[in-house]
């Protein structure tokens, strides 16, 4: 352990020396870091004057924490270049091979570079924040409390880890510094969006909500570090595979994985699909477990908490019952209002959205959206209970008939998406990050085409043509 830390520090220390001896890095950084707080200070002064004249207390109260967050982010975005070129830069300068030929372990090299990549921007970020706070202390604005300030500093730290860990993943995978810098937009742009979301939390949420942002960013940063470590291999920094984009090879590998050993559709369904299901067993269990928790928790949350917001009198309940009863006839021609193919496409698109969100977050965002949907089902059943309906009957007649197919499809798609995310952050011997992603996507598509789409098609037909009739039949007993 101690030897590991010494090695990590050795790599980091050399990088520090290298950076801080280069005036082309140090001078612009120092200039920008010291200049920006002054600009921000003046902007704050003008904003305060403006709001004092025209109002805007909410903005005024949270202006300084917001500016502190932005000032913290600003140096992170331009010091990112150091992390971006950490491996690919050494590769271009030819200095990487002696280092790779040394007995340093992959993780020591990686974490050494990560450490310096994080510390440098953080020093500049915190330095810049310090200058701004010193300047702002003489202005007639509300100075953020220590709790809020600690939250913002923590959030800045989480941003630094997130951005630097992404940049280092890019640096390991990129072939040239130019390519790495181009790919940097995939780091800066999403984090800028994230910053906007956090700004909303600062202005309209309460301080405690920021903990969720910190937790989410830290989780994502942790997964990115894990991804980087899992796919850091000396061979890829020197090998030729990384330099070529071979569409023929990509298609061949994808097809091989998708088709598997099957030579006919029947064989594919009898060999490959069961194999996919076996491989999905663990993720399916996780997804099912979490869905149960989300559904039940949401049901009970609604049952317990909603009455404190809405006082449901027996008259109100009776009114709702009558209203629902009167509108049941609208279900007669549901197929005309919502054709089955449209519903099918909508559901299929949702599973693709799960995948896309999962891809950018190693499964976490896709899973979150899935759980939100399941939570909604639990909430609706909870609401049914509150107005006096039987939640069990509502579930059996209104959700279960098409849900058998639809929920199965969505559970499978989510489990497959979660597996893609898990595979990305798991070391795959003899496979590059690109190949791992390609094969994981082929696995996902196999489940999507072979199971999810057929199940969703059946579900759409049942939901439009069977479920409404069952609801109408069962309603008198609700």
């Amino acid at each position, binding site marked *: 352990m101690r030897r590991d830390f010494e*090695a990590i520090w*050795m790599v980091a220390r*050399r990088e520090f*020396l*290298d950076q801080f*001896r*280069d005036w082309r890095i140090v001078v612009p950084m120092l200039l920008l870091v010291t200049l920006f707080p002054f600009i921000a200070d003046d902007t704050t002064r003008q904003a305060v004057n403006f709001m004092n004249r025209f109002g805007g207390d909410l903005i005024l109260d949270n202006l300084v924490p917001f500016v502190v967050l932005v000032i913290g982010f600003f140096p992170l975005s331009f010091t990112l270049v150091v992390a971006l070129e950490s491996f690919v830069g050494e590769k271009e*300068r*030819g*200095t*990487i*091979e*002696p*280092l*790779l*030929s*040394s*007995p*340093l*372990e992959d993780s020591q090299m990686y974490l050494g570079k990560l450490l310096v990549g994080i510390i440098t921007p953080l020093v500049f970020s915190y330095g810049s924040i310090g200058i701004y706070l010193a300047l702002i202390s003489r202005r007639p604005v509300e100075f953020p409390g220590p709790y809020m300030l600690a939250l913002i500093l923590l959030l800045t730290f989480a941003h630094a880890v997130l951005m630097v860990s992404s940049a280092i993943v890019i640096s390991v995978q990129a072939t040239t510094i130019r390519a790495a810098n181009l790919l940097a937009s995939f780091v800066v742009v999403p984090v800028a969006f994230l910053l906007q979301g956090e700004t909303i939390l600062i202005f309209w949420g309460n301080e405690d909500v920021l903990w969720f942002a910190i937790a989410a960013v830290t989780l994502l940063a942790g997964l990115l570090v894990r991804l980087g470590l899992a796919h850091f291999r*000396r*061979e890829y920094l*020197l*090998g*030729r*595979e990384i330099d*070529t984009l*071979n569409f023929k*090879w990509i298609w061949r590998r994808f097809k091989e994985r998708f088709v598997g050993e099957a030579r006919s559709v029947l064989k594919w369904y009898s060999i490959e699909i069961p194999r996919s299901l076996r491989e999905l067993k663990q993720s399916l269990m996780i997804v099912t477990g979490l869905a149960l928790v989300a559904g039940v928790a949401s049901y009970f949350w609604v049952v317990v908490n909603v009455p404190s917001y809405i006082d449901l009198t027996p008259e109100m309940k009776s009114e709702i019952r009558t209203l629902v009863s009167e509108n049941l006839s609208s279900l007669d021609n549901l197929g005309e209002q919502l054709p089955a193919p449209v519903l099918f496409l909508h559901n299929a698109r949702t599973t693709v959205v799960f995948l896309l969100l999962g891809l950018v977050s190693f499964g976490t965002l896709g899973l979150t959206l899935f759980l939100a949907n399941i939570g909604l089902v639990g909430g609706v059943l909870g609401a049914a209970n509150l107005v006096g309906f039987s939640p069990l009957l509502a579930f059996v007649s209104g959700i279960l008939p098409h849900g058998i197919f639809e929920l199965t499809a969505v559970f499978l798609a989510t489990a497959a998406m979660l597996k893609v995310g898990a595979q990305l952050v798991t070391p795959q011997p*003899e496979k590059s990050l690109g190949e791992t992603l390609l094969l994981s996507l082929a696995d996902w598509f196999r489940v999507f085409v072979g199971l999810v789409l057929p199940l969703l098609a059946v579900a759409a037909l049942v939901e439009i043509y069977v479920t409404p009739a069952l609801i109408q039949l069962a309603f008198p007993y609700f």
Partner: protein
Amino acid sequence: MIETHDLSKQYNSDFWAVDGVTLNVQPGRILALLGQNGAGKTTTVRMLTALLVPTRGWARVAGYDVTKNPQEIRSSVGVLTEQHGLYMRMTGNEYLDFFGKVYGLSPKTRKSRSDYLLEYFGLSEAAKRRSGEYSKGMKQKLALARALIHDPSVLLLDEPTSAMDPESSRLVRDEIARLRSSQRTIIICTHNLAEAEALADHIAIIYRGKILLNGTLEELKRTVLGPVEYEAKFAEAFDAGELDLPEGVALVSRSGTSLRFRIEAPHVANPKLVHALTSRNAPLISFQEVPRKLEQVYLKTMADAQGVAYAA
């Protein structure tokens, strides 16, 4: 010791950069790996340093398997890479100290090894200057010092004297020869055939990933250029007439004052041949082997491999 069997590396599922390389280099021996650019020399060296994983075959370096014990191999091997790979903003001292730490040397050993190597390569005065200010030759010497900092038992040197002036090249060659005498196992990849000829005990010629030839210089000459030739020179025109040639000797060419023979077993045939000449009262002034260089071996091997005529 370096031992490989069927060592192969494939890229992109269709290109064999190294294909079935089998080598054996004993301690105290130097193998020169010769070949065109892109022939597979660097890929072979990278597999021997456990930087690339072989697609097929195996290799053992310093007693360790390249796939099973990569860390042990990296600790035992000194590598001089194709590019010197120096950190330009570090001084010579700092650079060697950094790599000394990387190889786990104690501060005292680091200091003594750095001082020795800097002194040996004539870099002591430049030790406190940043390596970015060094000349090309000085950079190469510092890179070589880095490869030697941990006193490795195996050395893999890619173009060790490239960009060096003749004096420095001599210095490096002397150091390599000294290392050989202290039982190090050494592989040199080079385009400098004179250097290979001067240093190597064994020479391997690699072409498109395959070893075409592997052996001592004499074995290679005999295999590629045929039996050795000797030339007898005379003080005046000598008519050899029907010379009674010993077994295994063939007359290759003749001019007024010289005769050239191809001799299968010189140690047996030469005394008899000289006797035959002197018994005919030939005015012999010299009898010596016709020098054949590694360059001829290399160029002929390459010409044969490419299917083109070899112009001697």
